[in-house]
């Protein structure tokens, strides 16, 4: 009895080892846990991709393959979902992220001027990362902070009533 259970434990251990990503990257563990919690159901794909992006910063090919295998989905399906949704990025982003909201309220209150200022002074276009990889400039359809338009998000922190000057003040440190 005891030897049987010991054997089982050993086989479980080797199985676990086999499952582990060959690179030994610990971040894949996070994915394992998320997928296991969802009982590896294919409908958890979006949730798993969210987690993956959180852990890796973006969705590299290797991660997509790993997720596809984990959820028993064709890679084409995983790739299809990853490219369909705007929040998933297949390219690495900069060390910091500045999101300028382009919702209607922000737009009529001059969000375009904010983008022009960033293009002019930080030399970065929307959807791109500065050449030195320090900051990515992203635009959002609407972040729901319309009462404080125009709004921007600096590394997750929402700031309202932005002006070209204040937005430069907020990103200045990142660019140095």
């Amino acid at each position, binding site marked *: 009895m005891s030897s049987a259970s010991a054997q089982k434990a050993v086989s479980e251990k080797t199985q676990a080892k086999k499952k582990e990503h060959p690179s030994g990257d610990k971040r894949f563990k996070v994915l394992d846990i998320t997928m296991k919690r969802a009982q590896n159901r294919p409908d958890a794909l979006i949730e798993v991709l969210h987690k993956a992006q959180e852990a890796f910063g973006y969705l590299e090919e290797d991660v997509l393959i790993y997720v596809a295998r984990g959820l028993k989905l064709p890679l084409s399906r995983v790739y299809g*979902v990853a490219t369909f949704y705007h929040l998933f990025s297949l390219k690495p982003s900069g060390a910091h992220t500045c999101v300028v909201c382009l919702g209607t309220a922000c737009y009529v209150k001059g969000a375009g001027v904010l983008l022009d200022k960033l293009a002019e002074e930080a030399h970065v276009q929307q959807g791109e990362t500065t050449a030195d990889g320090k900051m990515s400039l992203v635009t959002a359809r609407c972040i729901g902070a319309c009462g404080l338009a125009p709004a921007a998000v600096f590394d997750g922190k929402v700031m309202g009533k932005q002006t070209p000057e204040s937005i430069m003040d907020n990103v200045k440190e990142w660019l140095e």
Partner: protein
Amino acid sequence: MELAELLEIAEKEQASRKPIRVHCCTAAGCASSNSEQVKKSLDEALKATDLHNTVEVCSVGCMKFCGRGPLVEIESKGLLYEQVTPEQAPAIVAAMNGGSQDDSDGLIPLDPQHPFFTLQQPIVLENSGKINPERIEEYIAVGGYQNLYKVLHDMTPEEVVDEITQSGLRGRGGGGYPTGLKWATVAKMPGDQKYVICNADEGDPGAFMDRSVLESDPHRIIEGMAIAGYAVGANHGYIYVRAEYPLAIKHLQKAITQAKKYGLMGSQIFDSPFDFKIDIRVGAGAFVCGEETALIASVEGGRGMPRPRPPYPAQSGLWGCPTLINNVETFANISAIIREGADWYASIGTEKSKGTKVFALTGKVRNTGLIEVPMGISLRQIVEEMGGGTPLGEVKAVQTGGPSGGCVPANLFDTPVEYDSLIKLGTMMGSGGMIVMDTETSMVDVAQFYMEFCRGESCGKCIPCRAGTMQMYQMLTKILNGQATMADLEKLEQLCGMVKATSLCGLGQTAPNPVMSTLRYFRDEYLTLLQDSPNGKVAVKS
């Protein structure tokens, strides 16, 4: 759980409260203006005085006047302050002590009798800004979950559906489909497995009503969904919420955990045979997922692409099962209807549009924020009385319905706000974004802005939408660059009609609306941009 236990929790919560409650808004709008710090400073300032025995500071949900945040309210004293900074905390405490009311402390009082507040009629937002959304006890203390009890013990599912039908409630997501009819369809469908989905994918730019409701009163949605589940025979609910709303997701998760803990969710709720559970699904930034069939595809973990209807989700929805999909605000109305009765609800509003509607009033207007008004109120009252007009220049138009809606020019502001009158004007109620534009805003520019939006958000499944939005965007750009001729404008109008008539889903069918409505009311602006600008050659329609 029994009703007595629920009442006991409510009583205990009431008893534990201090006589004076200071409300500090910590919803996303005010939070981005540093309201967390304001709350902390208020706590510290209170500790320094002997008031801390009688006064408590509470984090509450949205207090509606988002443009003036952070807001702090001392309800029992009728005091309300705007743009509060952490440094002003001692001054607020002093004011509570009957201290000086002069301006030296920099406090900006806000009149609670301002039309912005007095013209409102809160039903959906009745608890917003009054209770702490992160504590279920506070929701129970204001009568929460009692309506679920009432439904489970005193009403049959058919009676619940009838009640909702009689209330005249219509879908608040934009379409305005009668809610009772939708519930009845799902209820009638055979099958053991049905689902309830709450559409919290509020994608319209310039709209944040659903976000505020979820952040400020999440239990209300849970109760509404559970009642819906009982009425249609579903035992599983999903809330599909945008990833852009992290605070709403956090509050919802917390609310679900608390409801489970109290046995208000799970199996045999209130010792009845009714089981109900709710899962949250987080979107990933696709506007089209607000369309119900696309939303279902996304809940299933796929690309959020719509499919042809019928079959409607009520017949074959999530995993092929009958599915009830309603908007956040629709669910938020349910418990109030059950509590006060269908007749009460039907007495508010107009003949064909009952109840209230929450709007996000934003853009070039003095007072921005959330308003909940009875249906039938005029746009003029909203923009001029509540919104206080535009800070500079003149109001030119109001845009409603987001990328699916249109603009209402200032000369038609006496139109009552209801589903049908807005459609007659070539716009729609939409989910509730209301963006005020002044004479500086170019309407062609606005049309191009929305077309850029639709072009980017088209899922690409059907050609009229995928190619049509692209072509319309290019034509609008050509017009804006001054390179277009009269022939281009004609082509644009033809294309609008074609895309509207032939697109697969609501996104494409309504994408031309902003262009068509600006052409209808502001044709001059298009004409002056044309190369063969023909004032005189063409009859200018008003």
